[in-house]
């Protein structure tokens, strides 16, 4: 029994001298514990005696299945700190239920008015059809004793072309951070658009019920000032604007099929 203990201790010292890069992290912890106690030190916790929570001799010797973790540890440096986008680990109960496929559609979440706190859920449901657009970056300034502090306010709109839209705004010292934050907020603020028919009932519902005032709801009345010319960039991409364009142009009450809309928008 004593031999076994000595062998273990010797194994540790050998490992320490080798300094293998792959297990450097873990064995450094074992080293620390060992250095503190010494190989046979009474009273001080030696490595073999599980002194300290620092992975101690547990994780060190056993060569964990955390080999995956070790690779991941090295991978962090290689990836530059950007997380993988396929593997989401969700933190809220809603997220876990969605991942387990117990909630099958975004509409169910809307139906029960459950708050969405993680933007990954929207990615999960809407995925590829999700398009994001930066509407504006606005520098805002605050007066401080040391001059003016400029931050950037980013407006981002996002949606799939099938009834889900969201707008987010975020202010930050760097443009990229503001845009990223605003994108997340846009996803969190996703709403479902109600569509019906106005005029002919051809095809699927495509007309948005709206009043002329709010920016994202295109006006049906051609006399409205919406959209202003500068906002054309957003709405040439949106299907809702396609219909407004058409209505402004023709003054008729003809509903346009979605397949015909791109032809109209370009004219």
């Amino acid at each position, binding site marked *: 029994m004593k031999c076994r203990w000595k062998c273990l201790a010797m194994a540790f010292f050998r490992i320490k001298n080798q300094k293998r890069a792959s297990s450097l992290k873990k064995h450094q912890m074992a080293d620390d514990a060992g250095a503190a106690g010494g190989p046979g030190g009474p009273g001080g916790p030696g490595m*073999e005696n599980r002194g300290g*929570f620092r992975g101690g001799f547990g994780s060190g010797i056993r060569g964990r*299945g955390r080999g995956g973790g070790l690779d991941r540890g090295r991978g962090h440096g290689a990836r530059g700190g950007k997380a993988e986008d396929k593997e989401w680990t969700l933190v809220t109960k809603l997220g876990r239920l969605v991942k387990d496929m117990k909630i099958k559609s975004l509409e169910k979440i809307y139906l029960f008015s459950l708050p969405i706190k993680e933007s990954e859920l929207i990615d999960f449901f809407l995925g590829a059809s999700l398009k994001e657009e930066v509407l504006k*970056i606005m520098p805002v300034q605050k007066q401080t004793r040391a001059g003016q502090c400029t931050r950037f306010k980013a407006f981002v709109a996002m949606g799939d072309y099938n009834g889900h839209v969201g707008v987010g*705004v975020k202010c930050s010292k760097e443009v990229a951070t503001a845009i990223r934050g605003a994108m997340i907020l846009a996803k*969190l603020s996703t709403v479902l658009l109600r569509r019906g028919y106005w005029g002919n009932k051809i095809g699927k519902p495509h007309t948005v019920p709206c009043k002329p005032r709010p920016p994202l709801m295109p006006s049906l009345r051609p006399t409205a000032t919406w959209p202003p010319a500068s906002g054309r960039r957003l709405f040439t991409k949106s299907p809702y604007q396609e219909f407004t364009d058409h209505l402004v142009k023709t003054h008729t009450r003809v509903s346009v099929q979605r397949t015909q809309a791109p032809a109209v928008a370009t004219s």
Partner: protein
Amino acid sequence: MAAAGARPVELGFAESAPAWRLRSEQFPSKVGGRPAWLGAAGLPGPRALACALCGRPLSFLLQVYAPLPGRADAFHRGIFLFCCREPPCCAGLRVFRNQLPRKNDFYSYEPPSENPPPETGESVCLQLKSGAHLCRVCGCLGPKTCSRCHKAYYCSKEHQTLDWRLGHKQTCAQPDHFDHIIPDHNFLFPEFEIVIETEEEIMPEVVEKEDYSEITGSMGEALEEELDSMAKHESREDTIFQKFKTQIALEPEQILRYGRGIAPIWISGENIPQEKDIPDCPCGAKRILEFQVMPQLLNYLKADRLGKSIDWGILAVFTCAESCSLGTGYTEEFVWKQDVTDTP
């Protein structure tokens, strides 16, 4: 960001492990299954392990083997966390701490063997070295026994009823039954080992310098105000939640953050414990944060239901700063539960 001093945070991850490694002799840190009790004397009784809110027995959630270097009386030290998983309660939590010196009545002075034991023997051992029997269902102290055969031990009436329905009814009447096959009562959580790694420093992200000048100034003033009022601004809750997500983003699968006296990362602005919310230890010393359990653990527990089910944001475990030994038994410590806020 509050500095943790020189002490880095240790992260725990859940990994599957063979059953022999998760027994008491190996001094494991584990999630789920039956508790691998450290000291075999002074176990918390059924009354201590009853949910404070609904009265039903608590399920074993996790245990952490956390010795204190430099303390002879805390050479072995374990912290055991129990939770209530029965709907509609799903809220009670209790945590216990036990510590032993190196020379004790239950374990050898020498470290345990790293090799699996040669004989498989019985899968579950329901009796401690001290002679106390453990409940067949939950693995906690089982003072009650089946009134007919007196061979099956339980901690409470609920567990006796559960086991009766799930198979003991048949085997009880048989004389000489060896009830080593214990059915799945759907009471225990799936079993994992907790593997420990030290947290790395968060490297600053490389910011791409793109030219956004063509976007600025393309919209009129009125539109900006409209958009501002319609768009979603970041509320304080959002900020805290996003900060939480960023801090765990480097290791998104972590289930535990360990560090005596570190500052915890909160998942919400509400329900953060103040000094006065954390009771002092009966020995007189203050309680400090020992570790926090992350919500990612729930991914492994597979306990989510569409209705009410066990859920938390953060579980922060506070233990005596002196790690006092009030007897050789299990002393109760304090756990604080912070939920993810429901407000959008």
